[in-house]
């Protein structure tokens, strides 16, 4: 069991408000990623759940019990941090066994549990070694195994993969997600890496400047970002964002940009755009969601908007390619297959599907389309 509930939690460091009125729930058996840039308050949040920091205001409850005043060791949580402090004089096996031994586990139980977690993390062959005889990646796995070996209500992790090279990181990412799903563990995982959050989490809490921006599944965060910050922070290459003015034209809405227009005919979008008629807004579309054809075309499908642009660059990246096109003064990135090669100077027609369009209120930065 492990349900974590934060209610109206604030954290002040002197005058600095690191976490502002944060309310969120990590359900039993859920993998919750807390995602944001450095300084967004994600680590402070985790440290308050762990009991390493006191909440200035608000309540933190684990399984219905308010833990604000409980010492970390009384909260029944396990922690894995970026830096792996292994005991240098103990073998990998004894390092992993440590949390079990201090809790008085029998030697047969220790043996079984250590072997089990070592098998999952692929470190069975190095259990006899001392830390100094292990690679950085192996040490990280040992540290991970030590955090995961005992059962706890909640597992808290602060960027535990950040010191690994790309390959080890993606490997351990897969293993951690499996471990979570197979065992039904409750995990709160802090990261600045959106790929990590997307890949592993059931839900993502996106934070910026101490404020929760969105709490949703990875797909929702990607496809229906709540506001401009989330749209911009998540996705690689990042979402195309264009400054436009919203004008109404009968049953259509027209987004007037710098020397180009995007005509919206989809009824739902026209209505939503109407909320900011006559005002400035930001139009957004992800590079992956823009279809295009070569040459000038006028064969729009119902709801679709066609916009012409000139190819500036085409970068083949192996599995994918990134096309950059010029829309008068603005640049648009399109992610496509390497086979769809175009040359600088080519005219393309972008086919914008209403399903993938975003329009952000310039003032509130809220996503009006989702």
């Amino acid at each position, binding site marked *: 069991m492990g349900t974590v509930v934060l209610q109206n939690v604030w954290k002040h460091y002197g005058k600095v408000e690191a976490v502002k009125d944060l309310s969120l729930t990590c359900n039993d058996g859920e993998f919750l990623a807390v995602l944001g840039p450095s300084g967004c308050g994600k680590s402070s949040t985790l440290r308050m759940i762990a009991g390493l920091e006191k909440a200035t205001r608000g309540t933190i409850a684990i399984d219905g019990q308010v833990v604000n005043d409980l010492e970390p060791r009384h909260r029944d949580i396990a922690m894995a941090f970026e830096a792996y402090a292994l005991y240098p004089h103990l073998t990998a096996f004894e390092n992993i066994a440590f949390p079990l031994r201090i809790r008085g586990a029998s030697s047969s139980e220790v043996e079984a549990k250590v072997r089990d977690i070592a098998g999952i993390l692929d470190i069975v062959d190095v259990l006899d070694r001392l830390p100094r005889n292990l690679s950085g990646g192996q040490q990280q796995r040992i540290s991970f195994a030590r955090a995961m070996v005992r059962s706890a209500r909640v597992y808290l992790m602060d960027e535990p993969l950040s010191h690994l*090279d*790309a*390959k080890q990181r*993606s490997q351990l*990412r*897969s293993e951690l*997600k*499996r471990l979570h*799903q*197979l065992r039904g563990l409750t995990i709160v995982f802090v990261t600045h890496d*959106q*790929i990590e959050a*997307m*890949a*592993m989490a059931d839900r993502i809490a996106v934070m910026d400047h101490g404020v929760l921006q969105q709490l949703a599944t*990875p*797909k929702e965060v*990607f496809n229906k970002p709540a506001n401009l910050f989330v749209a*911009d922070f*998540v*996705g*690689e*290459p*990042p979402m195309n964002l264009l400054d436009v003015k919203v004008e109404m034209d009968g049953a259509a809405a027209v987004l007037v940009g710098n020397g180009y227009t995007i005509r919206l005919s989809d009824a739902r979008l026209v209505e939503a755009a109407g909320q900011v008629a006559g005002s400035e807004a930001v139009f957004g579309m*992800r590079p*992956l*969601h823009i279809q295009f054809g070569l040459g000038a075309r006028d064969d729009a499908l119902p709801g679709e908007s066609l916009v012409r642009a000139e190819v*500036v*660059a085409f*970068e*083949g*990246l*192996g*599995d994918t390619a*990134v096309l*950059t096109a010029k829309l008068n003064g603005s640049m648009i*990135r399109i*992610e496509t297959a390497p086979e769809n090669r175009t040359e600088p100077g080519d005219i393309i027609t972008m086919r914008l599907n209403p399903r993938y369009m975003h329009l952000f209120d310039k003032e509130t930065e809220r996503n009006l389309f989702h």
Partner: protein
Amino acid sequence: MAEVVLKNVNKKYGQLEAIKDLSFLCREGEFVVMLGPSGAGKTTTLKMIAGLEKVTSGSVFIDGREVNDLEPRQRNVAMVFENYALYPQSTVYENLASPLRAAGETGDVLDGRVHQIAEMLQIDKLLDRKPSQLSGGQQQRVSFGRALCKDAQVYLMDEPLTHLDAKLRHEMRRELRRIHGEFGTTTLYVTHDFREAMALADRVIVLMAGEVHQIGTPSQIYNEPANEAVADLIGEPPMNVIRCELRQDSGKLMFTSMDMCMPVPGTLLAAVSKLPGKGEVHMGIRPTHITVYHDRSQAGIDAIRAEVYVLEPLGGVAVLTVKIGQSLVKIRVSDEFEARIGDSVWVEFAHDRLHAFDAATGLRVG
């Protein structure tokens, strides 16, 4: 502009051989990217060309002239580093002008050149500002501008985009290509990021542990990797490599491993039959060249049964890892794809995208 040639270059630090018998040619006006993991010897190579490190043996030629014994400033190269060293107390204009002054330029010529380069880099409106008033990307551009102001024969760049955020990195990558197009400068660029190499290079030199593994166009490096190590360096996730045995089955040569058996495609037959040893072979396929089905009836006859290991959505796309026998195989799927750990699925490899590697040497044979 000039060509750069390295001939049998070795570099030792005490017992450690950092660079082993390195030879390559960077043509006049070419954009060559040196790609490799950390510790490959990329920066060392760049420094030997710049004259910041001495070669232990072998020769470095710039524009046909051996430069082994020349001082850095006599080599006429410009270097751009990861961290852009600008004069903090000077304006952008002065930062750009100082290398020109050092080269003896004055008056209108100097002024004209500064403005020309500032325009090219789209920093002409920032000339009065100090570095502290610039964004990271703008500082990066000023740093490039300084290098360009040197009017060098060769530009050397060491991971110049590493510390930029994703958006700026994309912008600067495109910008770099554009600048190269306009100036036609001979450029040697070092990175550990395969995307940068693919996007920027006319040709890529793959360097690992001080040795060249392959020199080729981005397309050659991706489609015809010289060996397993190169295949493993390109792509996110990189190429899957599955240990197999070759077996004859009713007259057909088959790739077989635990729980897998599929015919060797015609295109690979000749190369695979010549392999020495007991018929061991490593089969390679990229994650994007595998199709996965929930239902056997949708899949072709050569489809292989696999067990879902984990599914990771990455925004728009997802990576599905499946287990085939003892091998974990990664597949790029749409983020609409759904599966649970332990599900049975059917996977189909694109036959024309299969590679075969010699199990003993790792060399690609087809």
